[in-house]
């Protein structure tokens, strides 16, 4: 049997396991509640805008200014000003949350099997790397599905309120969700890597929290350094600023740009992050005594 079939069966099993477990159910409920809460916030904000009777074009200009400032890029500001504000806001919020949500869902995926040695039933039937890859893809698919559920909540509220047409909702909502999906691949890979480094789930969770927080802090710090370097180019910050490329969070700027080459590069780099992390996890498990 091919490795692809092994990956498929492992992935299907992990999806079944996750969606059926208490943790999986709890996470699904949390995501739906998150969607509900986000929709309520959105509705409240939209209500205020409605009361002030602000013309649509003025709102779009406001949005453009907001995204121009946030991304420090005129092109991105113009591009995203056509998207419903809350869609982009939720995309940005999820960009920070996805690493931790992915970790919560997948931290025990490999290490629990190593701890209980249930992996011994699998490794005499399937290549170790295909087992790990199957688990990584399962995390990716599950988090993507949960994020979609959360998004759909907001999309429905947006359409019911008449704030965006079906076409706009599906076009922008779908596009931003797909970008989240790309980003989830990165963190699914990193999660499975964390999970493969130890036999203790609690340790994998702790390690993941530390490493992922490190990534978030690193991204923020190098962003601040970039700003500082822009003010004073001779400052040592300009030497450290390129470190931003090492943090997956940085590529948000690339994937939301209307410039196709940059966007494709961002997508490829994020997918490569995920693939490289999964490959590293495969290497670790392959070398391990199980």
């Amino acid at each position, binding site marked *: *049997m091919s490795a692809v*079939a*092994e990956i498929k*069966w*492992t992935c299907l*099993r992990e999806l*079944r*396991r996750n969606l*059926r*477990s208490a943790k999986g159910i709890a996470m699904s409920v949390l995501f739906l509640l998150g969607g509900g809460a986000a929709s309520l916030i959105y509705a409240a904000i939209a209500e205020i805008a409605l009361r002030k009777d602000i013309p649509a074009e003025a709102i779009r200009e406001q949005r453009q200014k907001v995204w121009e400032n946030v991304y420090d890029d005129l092109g991105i500001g113009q591009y995203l000003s056509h998207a419903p504000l809350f869609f982009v806001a939720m995309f940005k919020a999820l960009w920070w949350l996805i690493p931790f949500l992915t970790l919560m869902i997948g931290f025990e995926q490999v290490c629990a099997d190593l701890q*209980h*040695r*249930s*992996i*011994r*039933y*699998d*490794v*005499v*039937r*399937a*290549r*170790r790397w295909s087992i790990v890859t199957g688990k990584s893809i399962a995390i990716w698919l599950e988090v993507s599905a949960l994020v979609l559920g959360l998004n759909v909540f907001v999309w429905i509220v947006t359409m019911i309120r008449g704030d965006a047409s079906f076409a706009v909702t599906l076009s922008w909502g779908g596009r931003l969700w797909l970008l989240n999906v790309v980003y989830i691949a990165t963190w699914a890979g990193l999660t499975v890597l964390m999970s493969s480094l130890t036999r203790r789930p609690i340790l994998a969770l702790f390690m993941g929290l530390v490493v992922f927080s490190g990534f978030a802090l690193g991204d923020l710090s190098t962003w601040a350094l970039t700003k500082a370097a822009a003010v004073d180019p001779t400052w040592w910050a300009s030497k450290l600023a390129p470190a931003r490329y090492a943090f997956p969070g940085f590529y948000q700027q690339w994937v939301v740009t209307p410039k196709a080459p940059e966007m494709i590069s961002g997508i490829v780099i994020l997918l490569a992050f995920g693939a490289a992390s999964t490959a590293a996890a495969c290497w670790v498990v392959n*070398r391990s*005594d*199980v």
Partner: protein
Amino acid sequence: MDRPPVFAISLQSITKAFGSTVALDAVSFDVTAGHAFGLIGPNGAGKTTAFSIIAGYLHPDSGLSLVLDHDSRAIDVLKARLAVLPQDALLPTYETVGEFLVHMAHLQGIETGAEAAARQSLAEVEGADWWSRRCGKLSHGMAKRVALAQAFLGKPEVVLLDEPTAGLDPKIAFEVRALIKKRKGRCTLVISSHNLHELEEICDAAAILDHGKIVAAGTMEDLTAATREIRITVARGPLPMDKVRALPGVTRADYVGQERALTVHFDATGGDAEDMIGQVLTLLLSEKIRISGVMKGKGLEQRVMELTD
């Protein structure tokens, strides 16, 4: 067409250490295809390590572990040909027995008819009724049988069984032994166990490990000296030892009064063990000595006791 390998398993100078503890020290042995082979030894002797290396769970530090002429970890080649009953691997608690077995069948390449194969395997261990039960809800004995069912799934050429009856009550242990015996002759079986009577009953050959080294290996008859020695327990002594020693082929004869046991060592000139039993019993009965028991060889248990610390 490729000829089937003579040896189903071949360990060549395997060494494995965990930190400063050497679990296996240049261990070598071969398992003839079609045989039931026992891995014997006290706790810490290295039998589980050897077993795990054959199964591909552990990497040897040096040496070669071959299963069906392939490296133990060449899963792409050994898939569905090698099956394992691991001793301490938990069944996935989140799955039903049926889901678990069907997944195992899928992984080993049974694409169509996976459920039928899984059901057949479960029926073989007399667990057909457990199909929809959660693995986490099974008793120890039931879980062991489900684990055995996954090992018997399909038509594996080599089946490794690590402590197949450990922790089972005598009735279930008996049934599991019967299941294993049913498989004998259909594939190569390697059984690691503390239960020496079980191994003596099932196995054709064995390797005895102690402190990470092979202290004896061979056929069960060789190991128990069944072709060179007989033991006769009598109701009461003394025995005509001079007459016993004078029998043709007898090389040595000892009588331990406390155990009321006569041990007779012999060579080929006296015929085989059955001939020697006949000769000695005829002599003893003619001397009006009452016989309590007769055994070929010394028994695996005694042999292991002699060879291990």
